[in-house]
């Protein structure tokens, strides 16, 4: 039986961790764009937007991410799309992220005092100008800490993509465990690698939140 060293294990895990990072970025950026669109639709009071977006958010926040991944995988196949794990995971995580970010950002916008909206309106600013020059900048400041914090949730979410066959850190852990029969060591390493990715981001988000509070 081949003897695997700790370094062998770590090296393979690190290689797989690249895909964790890539998928996280795709989901975060894509989800951010979609989420922003949803939020703006809501704020612009497009007919039905309020209800649709609220329902959308409820759906993604009230159902397991794992189920969302399965549905993307099996659902997209129904449309004849050639579904790889990449496409399914990418779509599912993007939509998941968009729902949560839309809700987080809605909270940030709501934290802006009513008076700002009223002042912008009385200056006859259009919706676009209001968003760009008055509401947007203020909401941005408030939104940075929780948005950075949510990135951690996205990274953790990519671990579930392993269940639909996406090769990332967790899937690599499972495969290496099957090869080495050392689940304790392997999964401990997997956990520590996720920790190394997530903890600095969590700590940074907390620091941002503290400095935001002080500056107020």
């Amino acid at each position, binding site marked *: 039986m081949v003897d695997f060293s700790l370094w062998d294990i770590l090296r393979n895990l690190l290689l797989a961790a690249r895909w964790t990072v890539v998928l996280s970025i795709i989901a975060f950026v894509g989800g951010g764009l979609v989420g922003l669109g949803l939020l703006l639709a809501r704020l612009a009071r497009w007919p039905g937007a309020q209800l649709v977006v609220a329902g959308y958010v409820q759906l993604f926040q*009230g*159902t397991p991410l*794992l189920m969302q991944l399965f*549905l993307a995988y099996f659902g997209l196949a*129904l449309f004849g799309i050639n579904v790889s794990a990449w496409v399914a995971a990418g779509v599912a995580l993007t939509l998941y992220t968009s729902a949560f970010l839309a809700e987080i950002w809605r909270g940030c916008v709501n934290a802006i005092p009513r008076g700002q909206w009223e002042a912008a309106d009385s200056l006859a600013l259009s919706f676009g100008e209001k968003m760009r020059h008055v509401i947007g900048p203020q909401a941005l400041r408030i939104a940075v800490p929780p948005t950075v914090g949510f990135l951690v949730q996205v990274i953790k979410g990519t671990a579930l993509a392993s269940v639909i066959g996406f090769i990332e850190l*967790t899937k690599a*852990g499972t495969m290496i465990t099957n090869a080495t029969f050392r*689940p*304790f060591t392997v999964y401990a390493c997997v956990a520590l690698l996720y920790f190394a990715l997530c*903890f600095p981001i969590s700590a940074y988000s907390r620091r941002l939140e503290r400095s935001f509070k002080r500056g107020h």
Partner: protein
Amino acid sequence: MVALDFLAVLEQWPALLRGAAFTLGLTAVSALVGGAVGVACGWARASGPAWLAALVGVYVELIRNTPFIVQLFFIYFGLPSLGVKLTPEVASVIAMVVNLGAYAAEIVRAGIENTPRGQIEAARSLALNEWQVFTRVVLPPALGRVWPAMVSQIVIVMLGSAVCGQIAAQELSYAANLILSRNFRGFESYLIATAIYLLLAIFVREFLNWAGPRWIFGRTAAAGR
């Protein structure tokens, strides 16, 4: 486009029901035990000795910065190497308790730290000992203050438990997997299971919002609304 056949899945409603019941059971046990762990850890972080607070801090950060599925796999696949043999159900409960405990610790800590000083002074002036001050005067309103966050976290853990089907714990996603392996209706199975999860999430949220004021923290400001 393939024709969808939901009936084939709905016929298997006993299996789905069993799975849903199991998920609820897992959640209930985890909420109780995990909640207790959270209260103990929250107390340790808020008012315990520095070394204990630091230890709990390490636990909390480890759990919050690693995915639940990895925690589950570590417990179910990793611990047997140390001689600890676990059934899928027990491993699931342990993983959920450990997970919820860490998040609950931070939630409860925030609640405890927001206790008005006067409450503690009044309780001490009435000659209550520290345990009584904590359990009868500090904790109930603290839980009331953070109840929405606590309820959200319990729902999150319940939704996260879908992963436990991967280690063959017989909960709802496992039931959906079984159905799909019998009739190959993947999309329909998962869609119906997802709908059931949504209903469970709504039910659990409503129940906890009703039960909290009634059984745990009386009529505090949070409950009054």
